């Protein structure tokens, strides 16, 4: 049972959070202008990185705020959490 640092509520057990998959995948500006393939990539395709991964979390049992995190999918260790309006950290 990991602790996840909610940017607002502080560290809480992982059961209080829900997972939102890859971060920084914006809704397309003009879905109607996309090809079927481009649209499919938005709907279904997400990176599945082994290692540092920028992803979305929601403190669903707590403050209900979404936030982003850089987490290592191999070790599960959270390297940092950041708010939605923060830019994606540059990962080495």
């Amino acid at each position, binding site marked *: 049972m990991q602790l996840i640092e909610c940017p607002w509520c502080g560290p809480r057990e992982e059961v209080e959070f829900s997972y939102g998959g890859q971060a920084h995948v914006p809704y397309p500006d003009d879905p109607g202008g996309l090809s*079927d393939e481009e649209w*499919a*990539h938005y709907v*279904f*395709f997400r990176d*599945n*990185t082994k290692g540092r991964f920028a*992803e979305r979390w929601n403190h669903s049992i707590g403050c209900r705020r979404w936030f982003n995190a850089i987490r290592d*999918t191999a070790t*599960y260790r959270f390297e940092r959490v950041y708010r939605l309006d923060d830019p994606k950290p540059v990962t080495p």
Partner: protein
Amino acid sequence: MSPRTPGADLPEHPDFLWRSPEPKRSYDVVLVGGGGHGLATAHYLAKNHGITNVAVLEKGWLAGGNMARNTTIIRSNYLWDESSAIYEHALKLWEGLEEDLGYPILFSQRGVLNLAHTLQDVRDSVRRVEANKLNGIDAEWLEPDEVRKICPVVNTSADIRYPVLGATYQPRAGIAKHDYVAWGFARRADEAGIDLIQDCAVTGFATDGNRVTGVHTTRGTIAAGKVALCAAGHTSVLTDMLGIRVPVQSHPLQALVSELLEPVHPTVVMSNAVHVYVSQAHKGELVMGAGVDSYNGYGQRGAFHIIERQMAAAVELFPVFARAHLLRTWGGIVDVSPDASPIVGRTPYDNLYLNCGWGTGGFKATPGIGSALAHTIAHDEPHPYVAPFSLDRFVTGALVDEHGAAAVAH
């Protein structure tokens, strides 16, 4: 020798299993991933197509990934025609596999019960049973008293939080001994001259236009006529090297085992609402699993609260399990696709074949996908069983949505 105690042991393995060859410079076919699917594909390439200049590359030890970590449930009672077709193809092969491999794989057709706890579970279950029957798959809907007859330790009291309202039952379904299965395929492949190369991690691919020409590994570069990826949870790591995007996400899936117990549980029970699945394996241990951990993870471990919830479900459904002991927990990495169906077939590279996205269905599909993928590689044409599972279904929208429809995982 004294008479053996119940649950004493399993059939002995053969005196020889496989060589540990040095990789050659070149093979006609390179299969990346020495798990169940890679080994089965190797076997059927040799057996059905006479293709033996084949290497199976395994980054760790053979069958050490999900093959070593699953709960060994075998069934074919999936909802959609496309799914039940390939799983039923697999089940028919399972039924002759012991003979084919000359290996005691302990395939025990003890039946699988999928319990229904809500009215919607009942509707979904009947729907699946009726579809299975029309597809020629053995399937029955059982009322609670019939469930109790098949598995007396299931709590079918109406007075529990989520009473059992009935179950689907597939009598031909069952379990097998996973290591024996993998080793049986491996030994046959090795006998056919196929090189099983362990401790050989793929670090990159050599490509030329639309073709993959070779595989860079920790044991050198290996040229390849055709390449197939059978790496389950690690598929994305490989496809990332090739610049191919595949819509799978890798999640931890945990399982656990108890000590050896006198037989109490004669079948396999799965429950989605009261989340747990259980069988009692050959030596007498209870083997159990539950849902996947929510987040992406390659760590072959999950969080313990999943296990605790699973134990609560187990004791709720099987009150007599209360003082059974959890002996060992472990985790695998399942690659889950958006529609909970596999992704198999051709790729943007002419001679590269993809086989992934099996989620929790990988083990039961082993011989089926092995033979269908071997066919696909040999004929350079998707076998009819795998054709519906092409990558482009996500573009057209023609999904095979097993979780949306059946609500039955594993």
